[in-house]
C-alpha cells in the first residue's frame, strides 16, 4: 500500500513518529513490569516468591510481609461482586435486546452505560456516606437473621454488621462492573443472526426459549469474554473499595468483616511506608496485581477475539 510515496523524507519522518508512538504501548508495558520488578527486588530477595504469595503476615513492626491476605481480599470481593453483577447484567442485556420496545432500547442502554462513566471515587464516597449506613442498619442485620443459623453458609454472616466490610465493597464493585458486562453481553446478543431466531420462533418457541436456547448459546463466548473483562476491571478497582473495605490484613470468613485488597493496601499505606522493605513489599504487591490483572485481561481478550472470529465467519 502506497509504497511509492515512501521515499519522501517528510513521509519517512512522519511514519517513524507514528511508529514510535505506537511502540510506546509495548515500551510502557515492559517498562512498568521492569520498574515494578526492580523496585520490589529487595522484598523479592527477602521473602522469595512462593513465601510472599502464601504468607498471611503483614507486620510492619517486625518487617515481615506476605501477600496472601491481600490476594484473598481481592479475589473474594471480585468473585462476590461478579456473582451479584452477572445475573443483573445478563438480565439487562436480555431486556435491552429482546424485551424492550424499540424506542426505549437506546435510552436504557445509554443510561446503564452512564454508570460506567461515574468516576470510581464518587462510588466510594457514596458508598461510605450513603450505602454503608443502609447496609449496616437494614440489609446486613436482615441477612444475618436469615442466614447466620444456616449450616455452612452461616459462617459468611457472623459478627456485627458494620457496613464497612466485604459485602458493602462487593455491592459497590458489582454496580461498577454491571455496565461492562451488560454492554458486552448486549453486543454479543445482537450478533445472533435474525434468521436463526426467526426459525426458532417459527417452530413455536416462546421468547424466553429463544433467548435461552438460541441467543445465549450462540453468544456465550462473547458473554464469557465480557465477564472475564469485568473480572479484570474489578481486580484493579481502588477508590470505590478504599472507602468501605476497612483495610484489615486478616483472612476472615464473614462477609461482615473488614478486609484488605491489594489496591486498598496500596492506597492506604504507600505514602505512609516508613522502611525500605515495607515500600518494596508494597511495590511487590503492585507487581502481583499487575501480573494478575494482565493475565486476566489477556484471557478476556482471547475469548472476545475468538467470539468475534466466530461471528464474522
Amino acid at each position: 500500500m502506497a509504497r511509492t510515496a515512501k521515499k519522501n523524507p517528510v513521509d519517512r519522518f512522519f511514519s517513524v513518529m507514528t511508529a514510535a508512538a505506537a511502540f510506546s504501548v509495548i515500551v510502557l508495558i515492559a517498562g512498568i513490569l521492569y520498574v515494578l520488578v526492580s523496585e520490589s527486588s529487595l522484598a523479592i530477595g527477602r521473602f522469595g516468591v512462593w513465601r510472599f504469595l502464601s504468607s498471611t503476615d503483614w507486620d510492619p513492626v517486625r518487617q515481615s510481609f506476605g501477600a496472601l491476605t491481600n490476594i484473598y481480599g481481592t479475589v473474594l470481593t471480585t468473585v462476590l461482586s461478579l456473582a451479584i453483577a452477572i445475573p443483573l447484567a445478563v438480565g439487562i442485556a436480555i431486556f435491552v435486546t429482546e424485551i424492550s420496545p424499540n424506542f426505549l432500547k437506546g435510552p436504557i442502554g445509554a443510561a446503564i452505560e452512564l454508570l460506567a462513566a461515574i468516576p470510581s471515587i464518587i462510588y466510594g464516597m457514596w458508598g461510605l456516606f450513603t450505602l454503608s449506613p443502609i447496609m449496616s442498619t437494614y440489609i446486613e442485620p436482615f441477612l444475618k437473621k436469615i442466614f447466620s443459623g444456616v449450616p455452612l453458609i452461616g459462617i459468611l454472616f457472623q459478627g456485627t454488621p458494620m457496613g464497612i466490610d466485604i459485602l458493602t465493597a462487593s455491592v459497590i464493585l458489582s454496580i461498577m462492573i454491571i455496565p461492562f458486562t451488560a454492554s458486552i453481553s448486549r453486543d454479543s446478543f445482537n450478533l445472533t443472526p435474525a434468521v436463526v431466531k426467526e426459525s426458532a420462533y417459527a417452530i413455536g418457541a416462546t421468547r424466553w426459549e429463544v433467548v435461552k436456547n438460541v441467543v445465549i448459546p450462540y453468544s456465550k463466548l462473547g458473554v464469557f469474554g465480557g465477564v472475564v473483562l469485568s473480572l479484570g476491571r474489578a481486580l484493579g478497582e481502588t477508590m470505590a473499595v478504599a472507602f468501605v473495605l476497612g483495610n484489615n490484613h486478616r483472612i476472615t470468613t464473614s462477609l461482615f468483616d473488614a478486609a484488605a485488597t491489594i489496591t486498598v493496601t496500596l492506597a492506604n499505606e504507600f505514602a505512609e511506608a516508613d522502611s525500605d522493605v515495607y515500600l518494596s513489599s508494597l511495590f511487590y504487591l503492585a507487581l502481583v496485581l499487575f501480573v494478575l490483572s494482565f493475565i486476566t485481561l489477556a484471557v478476556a481478550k482471547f475469548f472476545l477475539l475468538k467470539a468475534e472470529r466466530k461471528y464474522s465467519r
Partner: protein
Amino acid sequence: MTREQIRKTEGFIALSLSTLAALGGLFWLVFILGDVLVHGIKALHIDLFLNDPAPPGVDGGGLRNAFVGQLLITVCATLIGVPMGVLGGTFLAEYARGRKIARLISILADIMVSVPSIVIGTFIYAVLVKPIGHFNGWAGAVALAIIMIPVVLRTTEDMLSLVPWTLREAAFALGAPYYKVITQVVYRGAATGILTGVLLSIARVAGETAPLLFTSFNNSFYSLDMKQPVASLTVTIFQYAMGPYDNWHAQAWAAAFVITIFILILTITGRLIIKWRYK
C-alpha cells in the same frame, strides 16, 4: 398445568426478572446521581470556585486550588496523551495496516486500557517522583496520559479504518505523499470519530484518583507550578471525605457534584456525536 402453561409461565418469570434487572440498573444510576446532586447542590457556593481552602473551622473556604489543579493536570495529560495516541493509532491503521505487529499492539493497548490505574501510579512514583525527590504535577499528568494513550490509540485506529480505502487511492493518484494523504484526507474523514475518542478519554481520566495519590499528590495553596505538588479534585475528595469535619464532607460532595457533571457532559456529548455521525 399443561406443558404449554409451564412454558409460558417460565418465560413470563424469566422475562420479568430481566425487566427487573434493567430497572435495578436504572435504580442504582438514579440513586447515586440523585444523592450526589442533592448533597452537592446544597454545598455548592460561589466561594468554592473563588477561594482557596480554609482550615477546618473557618468558614468561606473553597477549592479553587483543586479546580485549577485538576484542569491543569488534565490539560497537560491531554497534551501528552492525545498526540501519542493519535499518532500511534495512525501507525496501526495506516503504515502497519494488516501487519502482525499492528495486531499485537492493538491487543496490548486493549489490555492496557483496563490495567489497574493504581499500578500506573506506583510506576510513575518510581520513575518521576522518587528520582526528583518530591511529588509533582507533571508526574500526575504523565500518569493520566499513560491511561489516555491506549484509549485514544484504539479509537483512532478504528476510526481511520472506517475511512474508505478508495479515498486514499484517489489522493495517491494525484501524486500526494502518504503523510499528506493521512493528514489532509484521512484525518479529515475521521475527525469527528477521533474527537469523540479524545472526549471520552478525557472523561475517563478526569475522574481518576488512584494514579494521582502518589504522583501529583495535593497542595493546599493555589499553584500553577507543575514542578510542585498540584491539588486535584479527586484527591481532595478522598482526603475530605475521610476527614472528621462536617464542612470537609460538604465540600467533598460539592466537588463530587462538579466533577460528575463535567464527566457526564463529556460522555453524553461523545455518545451523541457517535450517534449523530455513525448511525
